[in-house]
């Protein structure tokens, strides 16, 4: 299964074929890419049926001997694209498999739907902007910032209207935070359903937000003493709105206009969105157009019909805002088979809506024995934390799991423990321990233990 890194026999130094012109080189890249994908695709179809097709093209492609030492590859000899070729750069064409994906059968329309972050292909804890999962209830609102207005009204001394230029003139903060949909892993309550970490755990992203602390803006309108609740309302065709207790607004809420150093992407709320660190993503209202201050919650559709957690006895929990601590192994995983016997690295992500991650434990025997994983710096509150651990694979079946403990002492539960308290109808807030089965050929499957 190892891909070859052998020294060539002959040792004769050959030249790479014809000198490709700039267009020739592009055509070459294209065919190379196609062949590569073809090979990888065949491997998926043949050996790994039922697994999400997310194999990097290199997995099945053979290196071209003409580019390997002692030869000198063509990119080492001829001029490449000049500086203006890509005014806004994009990833290497060899990374074309690293994209958001959706599950067609899940929803009636793509405008009220969700796609998933390819967490199996990401490194570090920052999600690139173009890969942040999307969840819309009425499609992406296309807002020209010139036409953007934020209104704040209700129990305030002076109801006000702000332009985006006004917002940009307030003092700003920049913070890294994860955003997780409460329905992340929601398809897995009754059993192992989706065979890919992108689908089981990809309703999460983590970026650096820049914006104005919400409390600074609330001070401009003067919240009346009986103003204990806020209602944040989106400017999309769903008019998405949620009730937020004022304590959260005064604690760490941000009205953000930027992510990862650039203005928000349209699909993430351009030009202004609410950021509620550690709380379920549905509340982070995008394209925010209005904040009303009130003395009671509103019980909107998104906090009654949806985003309430139905228990076994038919009662439902409401206002389940905080995201419990959770972790998952993002390699190996169904998209990332184990390719080598001997030493392998387990990598993964951990997060908690209540603060920092304290520990991550990793098991290779389905949770009987655990070892401490290494946490990669920095470990920030309400932010993704990367972990890694080493494991020797001898070709036998292995049951991989990770479990995290956050700084409040909260322990990520097993699926059985969660089901005992909540049943299987909850949809939301499934933060249970995930199991991956590595079989004897190195393929990885999403399995449920019992």
């Amino acid at each position, binding site marked *: 299964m190892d891909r070859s890194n052998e020294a060539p026999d002959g040792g004769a130094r050959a030249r790479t074929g014809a000198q490709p012109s700039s267009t020739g080189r592009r055509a070459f890249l294209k065919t190379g890419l196609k062949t590569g994908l073809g090979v990888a695709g065949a491997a998926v179809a043949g050996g790994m049926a*039922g*697994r999400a097709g*997310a194999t990097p093209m290199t997995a099945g492609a053979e290196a071209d001997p003409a580019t390997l030492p002692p030869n000198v590859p063509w990119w080492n000899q001829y001029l490449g694209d000049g500086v203006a070729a890509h005014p806004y750069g994009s990833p290497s064409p060899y990374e074309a498999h690293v994209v958001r994906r*959706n599950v*067609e*059968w899940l929803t*009636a*329309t793509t405008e009220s739907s969700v796609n998933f972050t390819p967490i199996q292909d990401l490194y570090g804890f920052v999600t690139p902007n173009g890969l942040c999962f999307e969840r819309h209830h*009425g499609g992406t609102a296309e807002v020209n910032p010139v036409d953007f207005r934020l209104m704040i*009204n*209700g129990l305030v001394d002076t109801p*006000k209207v*702000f332009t985006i230029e006004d917002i940009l*003139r307030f003092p700003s903060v920049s913070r890294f935070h994860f955003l997780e949909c409460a329905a992340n892993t*929601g398809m897995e309550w009754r059993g192992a*359903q989706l065979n*890919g970490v992108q689908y089981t755990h990809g309703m999460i992203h983590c970026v650096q937000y820049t914006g104005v602390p919400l*409390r*600074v803006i*609330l*001070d401009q309108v*003067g*919240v009346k003493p009986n103003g204990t609740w806020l209602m944040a309302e989106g400017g999309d065709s769903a008019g998405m*709105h949620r009730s937020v207790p004022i304590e959260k607004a*005064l*604690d*760490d809420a941000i009205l953000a206009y930027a992510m990862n150093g650039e203005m928000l992407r349209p699909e993430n709320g351009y030009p202004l969105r609410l950021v509620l*660190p550690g709380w379920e993503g549905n509340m982070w209202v995008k394209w925010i*157009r*209005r904040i*009303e201050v009130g003395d009671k919650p*509103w*019980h*909107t*559709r998104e906090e009654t019909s949806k985003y*309430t957690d*139905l228990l076994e006895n*038919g009662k439902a*929990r*409401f206002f389940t805002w*905080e995201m*419990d601590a959770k972790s998952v192994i993002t390699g190996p995983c*169904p998209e990332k088979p184990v390719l080598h016997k001997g030493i392998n690295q387990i990598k993964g992500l951990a997060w908690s809506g209540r603060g920092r991650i304290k520990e991550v434990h990793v098991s290779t025997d389905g*949770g009987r024995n*655990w070892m401490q994983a290494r946490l990669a710096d920095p470990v920030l*509150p309400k932010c993704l934390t990367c972990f890694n651990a080493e494991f020797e694979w001898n070709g036998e079946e292995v049951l991989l799991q990770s479990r995290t403990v956050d700084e409040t002492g*909260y322990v990520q539960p*097993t699926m*059985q423990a*969660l089901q005992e*308290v*909540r049943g299987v*109808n909850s*949809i939301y807030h499934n933060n249970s321990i995930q199991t991956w*089965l590595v079989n004897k050929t190195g393929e990885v*499957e*999403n*399995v449920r*233990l*019992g």
Partner: protein
Amino acid sequence: MSVLARTLTRGITAGVVTLALGSAAFAFELEAGKPYDLGRPATPEEIAAWDIDLRPDGADAPVGQGTAAEGEEIYMVQCASCHGEFGEGRDRYPVLFGGEDTLASHDPVKTPGSYWPYASTLFDYIHRAMPFGQAQTLTDDQTYALTAFLLYINFVVDDYDFVLSHENIGDIEMPNHDGFIPDSRPDAQPETVCMSECDVATEVVGRARIIDVTPDDDGETAAISID
């Protein structure tokens, strides 16, 4: 008192905790309660046009009225194409009626009749978001009529000529009104954090691969049903 000043007062007692968590350093970075001369007062007309929400007790409900009978006519033209003539939901569009006594079953059906705690939420949501793709085109009277119709097909009101209005929308008692309980997490916590020889089941009892609903890059997969 300004919001910031209020927080700072609170912060004196909570200060230690806040600093330990390291998440709320805002108060110390920014001058407390500083007024910035930014933004302009909103006019009453602007507020009236954008402030479209109402609350469970009927507060802020816009003046208007409509009957279930009137609602049915609008529903057939503007809603039935997606939600079905009987509210049964076409394709994967939401089901709007039925589901009584299913919440504690293996297959709960959550509809306004079986699940929603407040009638105000129906009015508010229809008014702001429906018909899907043509939001905020219904008048207040049409929305009262549609809400009355959905209450009627869900047996919340019995009379086809029942008049729903800003005056009585706060009084409607929904069947699942008492079905909601506060968040009691953190829950499902182990007594100790076991590190070795833990007593857990490790038999594989389910495999996603066999269920086979995962999309591959070539196309679709068989549909199964989730919410």
